[in-house]
């Protein structure tokens, strides 16, 4: 009887092993097929970063193909496995809410086998927070002292040290493996840019209508460059709400390029709106929270006939726009042609950059265009 039972159990174990192996096989194949990506919607061209055949993603090449990751310094500590829970509580309460470091591609814990003369033991290394958030070890130690009362897993005497991790998710699975070994365990969730391209949503009709508006305005102004700033309407079927149309005025002022003009118009009308509000209501204005929504050009959409120059692109960074779609690359442009300013590391703001590649529209622009290709727009 006992023997039968044992052989039965062994059978079960063997079949479980088989099932596990099979599952692994399936997962592997799934991962493989991800690179050809049958899940990709039909309007998305992952290879070239083109949507609907009309919008081309302009992205920093170093970001797409970085083989050496940009690293950032984080604070780390070693704990015993039994301390995991209280450490997580601590991290969630006192660090995550204040730390801007995006960590979704990084595993919080790293299991390490330590071999000592007495034998091997397991230690967990854990990431606490970025060095940017707390720049000295003392600050972190003080936090631990103040907030860990649990005597069973006292964290207050924990040793804290620095380590370096990649800032961004790895672009390929191979690099994910390589960087995980070299720096810190990372999770692989598919090519991050492909994920982005599949998830980004455009109502292409209303983008077409904005391009139409650009061309129309340029035509009315003798083919001069035009920049439009708009707010995305809450309903996806409506057109974007146009807030300002800027046209090139460099004949009067060398710096009044269309983008600078549009930014100034947005600011002027917001200033007027606030003054009116202040006059009419005379109170409670700040409490309405409006002020925050209308801060500079925060997350607004920008459309431009030409690739902006360094001045204008940096003006868009300062204005914290959400996205630009522009039509014509310029020799002295500073998005795709040089610098890629809206997508540059180290500046305090980034925005999405797309170039309109609809041939019909570009043809119309080329016929209108009154601007020499080396001009700064």
């Amino acid at each position, binding site marked *: 009887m006992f023997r039968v039972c044992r052989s039965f159990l062994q059978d079960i174990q063997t079949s479980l092993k088989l099932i596990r192996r099979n599952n692994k096989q399936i997962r592997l194949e799934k991962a493989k097929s991800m690179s050809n990506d049958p899940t990709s919607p039909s309007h998305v061209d992952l290879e070239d970063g083109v949507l609907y055949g009309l919008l081309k993603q302009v992205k920093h090449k170093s970001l797409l193909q970085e083989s050496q990751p940009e690293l950032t310094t984080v604070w780390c500590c070693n704990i015993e496995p039994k301390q995991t829970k209280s450490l997580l509580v601590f991290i969630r309460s006192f660090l995550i809410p*204040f730390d801007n470091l995006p960590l979704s591609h990084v595993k919080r814990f790293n299991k390490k086998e330590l071999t000592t003369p007495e034998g091997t033991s397991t230690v967990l290394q854990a990431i606490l927070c970025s060095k940017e958030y707390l720049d000295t070890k003392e600050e972190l130690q003080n936090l631990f002292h103040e907030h860990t009362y649990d005597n069973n897993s006292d964290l207050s005497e924990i040793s804290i040290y620095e380590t370096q991790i990649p800032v961004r998710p790895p672009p390929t699975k191979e690099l994910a493996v390589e960087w995980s070994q070299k720096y810190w365990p990372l999770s692989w969730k598919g090519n991050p840019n492909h994920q982005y391209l599949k998830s980004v949503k455009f109502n292409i009709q209303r983008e077409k209508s904005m391009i139409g508006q650009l061309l129309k305005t340029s035509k009315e102004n003798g083919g001069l460059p035009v920049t439009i700033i708009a707010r995305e309407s809450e309903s996806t079927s409506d057109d974007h709400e146009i807030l300002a149309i800027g046209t090139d005025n460099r004949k009067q002022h060398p710096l009044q390029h269309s983008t*600078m003009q549009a930014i100034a118009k947005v600011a002027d009308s917001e200033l007027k709106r606030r003054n009116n509000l202040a006059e009419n209501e005379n109170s409670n204005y700040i409490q309405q929270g409006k002020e*925050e929504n209308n*801060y*500079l050009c925060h997350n607004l959409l920008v459309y431009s006939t030409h690739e902006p120059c*360094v001045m204008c692109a*940096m003006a868009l960074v300062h204005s914290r726009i959400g996205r630009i779609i522009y039509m014509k690359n310029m020799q002295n442009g500073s998005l795709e042609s040089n610098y890629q300013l809206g997508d540059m590391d180290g500046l305090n703001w980034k925005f999405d950059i797309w170039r309109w590649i609809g041939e019909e529209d570009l043809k119309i622009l080329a016929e209108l265009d009154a601007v020499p290709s080396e001009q700064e727009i």
Partner: protein
Amino acid sequence: MDLTEHFQRVGLSLFVAFKALSINETPVACILVSKKSSKVISIGYNDTNRSLNGTRHAEFIAIDYILDNVEDTFPVDDLILYVTVEPCIMCASALKQVGIQCVVYGCGNDRFGGNGTVLSLHENNYGIIPGILRTEAIQLLRNFYIQENESAPDPKIKKNKELENKLYPEMDYGKYMNESEFIKIYGLERLNSTYINKKEITPVIGKGYRVSDLVSLDDVMGMPGLENMYSRDKKCSGPMTREAVAQDLDSFYRMFYAVDDEGDVTFGTHIKIIGSENKIEFIKEGSDRDTNEVKEPIENGVEKKRRKLSNEGHLH
């Protein structure tokens, strides 16, 4: 090589920046000087908070003033810009497009600098002379940002609480120019002390200075457009009279450490620390020299958050 004139002119910009503090703008400012006449043609100061336009940096205000009041045509090949902080990428490009000749500036602009720190847009276009009154420029910015630190996310952790005697980060001139370019601008005698040993530049080699030696009441009164700042400054000095400016100058002088003959900042001596909200009034009240406490004005959360957002972007 005598750099006194550069110091005096950046000193004037520094006073304008100080005035910007009192109208709740980021303390960054500049003046445009005509090479031929040696006259101050216009002044500029950060105007982003009032205008709600993140591009209204000092350089743009100064250029617009010229277009509105002085010249009709750019480029003007006769202009030198003196500015307290390295122009940002946007401004550095704008300066190129109007045909500026030379930019003399105080401290580097770590995040956005377009004249050597992040990009070098002046290369093949115009000259730069960095590091003139740079610790003083940083000191003004620290006065502005001190309240930011007070409103940090976790009030339990106060960073940079001690402004008093806080060191200034070193300036690495090698980042902005090579040795021979440095010698051409500042003189061989400064190579060892400043380029290699990171001492502060002084107007005259081997001689220290105070801001009060550099900025005179007459020179301040001679700047065009300053009265606009005074008319905006409702809470404090009132209209721009000689007396009001003299009073401001007195407070202004006391905000900075002297730099000694060796090019070392004289930490340990007493200076004034003010914030943007309680600003000049506070200095007047606390006339005894041992107050350096900064009173934090009461404001609601939204206001704080908004200011936090806005202050980040407004460095030139």
